[in-house]
């Protein structure tokens, strides 16, 4: 058996035909994690007891052979910023090193309902802040395609787990590109859904106006299957969209072919690595051969998205992270002798618990929201954000002039070396330049590898992005499936 070739579809068929059991597949993945994860470092913790319990239940379902959910018995990994009752959830931070989740995130409850086998929690940049997973308080994660390089971030563990054959699919969260950029760097597929399509209840918040949970997998079809399992309205998330959306994982080439794709000139700028440019051009040529129509479009405010993001995100971070005060969980017992009042407890807990990037962003957020600077930074950024949103509204116009989907590079470069950008925050921030605008507008975006990249071939993956209209996941997933199946 080779874990690299497993897809959700192939496992499901194998379970049904009794070629193997869910228990055998679960054992197989844990063995592989034991062998390979020492060098990759995708996981922070494993949830073996849960996994084997569920595998047993999945095997019983396949024995009975009635109403079997698509994800039954499928080995999945979860980014360690989603609460999974009774297990450790660290968000990659020292401040939550010993935190045990007291309830299930809605996405985890939905996966449990499907009898999916949850293997463990994956590494991330602290509180999902970063583009390389180097900001984890625990260890670095390496790119399975080249162990001297980063897997991207912040959901680097989830991307590396899928690329390295340590899970069939996984969940990540995307605030400014944290699913799509690591998917691109690791040669896997990653989806950031429409804001509000997947409940964020039980996701440790980074920037609440931008965060969205989404899946990683090796194929677009698998990503669509996981997305179908986790989407839907949830009364526990006030931003959750109540409208029903049909299933997206059914392949429909006729539907894909009639979509009009826009190429925004602002995404093809100097400074893109030439291999990225070449790969994305190859993808465009392939779509053209397959009969897809293209149009040149303009999103004039794209270049301002990065500045806006690094004002708005830290502002929201400084508010969201205020709750980590060391009182209800944390290391207060070690500090007892040094603490005489509440303020000292807060200051010491945060000072010791937060890493350098987290502190930098909390301080930056505090600055842009402070009296005298609010209008110049935060107020201005929110106005420019509106202009960025207006750009999308204009090109997604329903008249003949509009397009259905936008195609662009996901990341300006391929995977970079570990340590290369770690000391210069600005150079790291530039990794997100093409992914941020979709988060601002709340619209769905999918990163697809230009071709199938085989681990060990020495080739570094390149991905492209398909950005869709609000709640039109079906469009980008249909086009992605059309691309990978032809």
């Amino acid at each position, binding site marked *: 058996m080779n874990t690299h070739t497993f897809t959700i579809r192939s496992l499901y068929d194998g379970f049904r035909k009794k070629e193997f059991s869910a228990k055998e597949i679960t054992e197989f993945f844990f063995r592989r994690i034991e062998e390979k994860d020492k060098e990759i470092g995708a996981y922070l913790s494993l949830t073996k007891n849960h996994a084997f319990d569920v595998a047993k239940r999945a095997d019983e379902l396949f024995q009975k052979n009635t109403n079997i959910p698509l994800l039954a018995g499928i080995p999945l990994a979860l980014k360690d910023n989603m609460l999974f009752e009774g297990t450790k959830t660290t968000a990659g931070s020292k401040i939550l090193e010993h935190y045990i989740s007291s309830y299930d995130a809605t996405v985890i409850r939905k996966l449990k309902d499907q009898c999916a086998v949850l293997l463990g929690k994956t590494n991330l940049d602290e509180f999902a802040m970063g583009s390389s997973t180097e900001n984890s308080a625990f260890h670095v994660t390496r790119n399975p395609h080249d162990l001297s390089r980063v897997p991207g971030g912040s959901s680097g563990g989830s991307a590396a787990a899928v690329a390295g054959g340590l899970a069939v699919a996984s969940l990540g969260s995307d605030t400014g590109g944290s699913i799509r950029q690591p998917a691109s760097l690791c040669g896997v597929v990653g989806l950031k859904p429409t804001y509000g399509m997947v409940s964020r209840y039980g996701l440790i918040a980074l920037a609440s106006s931008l965060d969205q949970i989404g899946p990683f997998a090796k194929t677009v079809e698998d990503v669509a299957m996981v997305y179908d399992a986790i989407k839907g309205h949830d009364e526990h998330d006030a931003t959750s969209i109540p409208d029903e959306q049909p299933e997206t994982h059914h392949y429909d080439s006729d539907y894909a072919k009639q979509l009009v794709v826009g190429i925004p000139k602002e995404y093809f700028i100097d400074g893109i690595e030439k291999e990225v440019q070449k790969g994305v051009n190859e993808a465009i040529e392939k779509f053209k051969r397959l009969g897809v129509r293209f149009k040149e479009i303009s999103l004039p405010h794209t270049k301002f998205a990065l500045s806006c993001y690094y004002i708005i995100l830290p502002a929201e971070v400084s508010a969201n992270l205020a709750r980590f005060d060391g009182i209800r969980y944390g290391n207060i017992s070690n500090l007892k002798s040094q603490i005489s009042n509440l303020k000292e407890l807060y200051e010491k807990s945060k000072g010791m618990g937060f890493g350098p990037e987290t*502190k930098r962003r*909390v301080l930056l957020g505090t600055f842009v929201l402070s009296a005298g600077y609010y209008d110049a930074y935060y107020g201005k950024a929110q106005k420019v954000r509106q202009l960025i949103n207006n750009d999308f509204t204009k090109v997604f116009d329903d008249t003949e002039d509009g397009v259905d989907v936008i195609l662009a590079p996901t990341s300006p470069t391929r995977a970079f070396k570990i340590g290369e950008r770690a000391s210069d925050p600005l150079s790291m921030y530039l990794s997100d330049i093409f992914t941020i605008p979709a988060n601002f507008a709340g619209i769905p975006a999918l990163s697809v590898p230009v071709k199938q990249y085989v681990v060990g071939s020495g080739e570094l993956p390149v991905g492209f992005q398909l950005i869709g209209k609000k709640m039109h996941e079906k469009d980008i997933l249909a086009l992605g499936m059309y691309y990978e199946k032809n």
Partner: protein
Amino acid sequence: MSERINEETIEHLAALARIELEKDSRKNKKLISDLSSILDYFEDLNTVDTEGIPPAVGGSFVKDAYRKDEVKDVSKESLLKGQFPNSENGFLKIPPVFE
């Protein structure tokens, strides 16, 4: 280089954010210079004409979200209380709020 952030402002921000800064002054100098170059980068926003543009609000597509105000068990009490770093008779114990 931006002059908006210096040692004094960084201490003020850290106090507002309730974060104890490192004692190592070299690390704090690097923090000041990193924040200053990030703020310099933001200068490009001043070239955008935003006259008459309303600021974006939130990201939500939902206008109002209501649910019934009912008591529900969402968490296991033992798991919640088990996290307390310091407790007495099942209650959370913290340093005095008023002194």
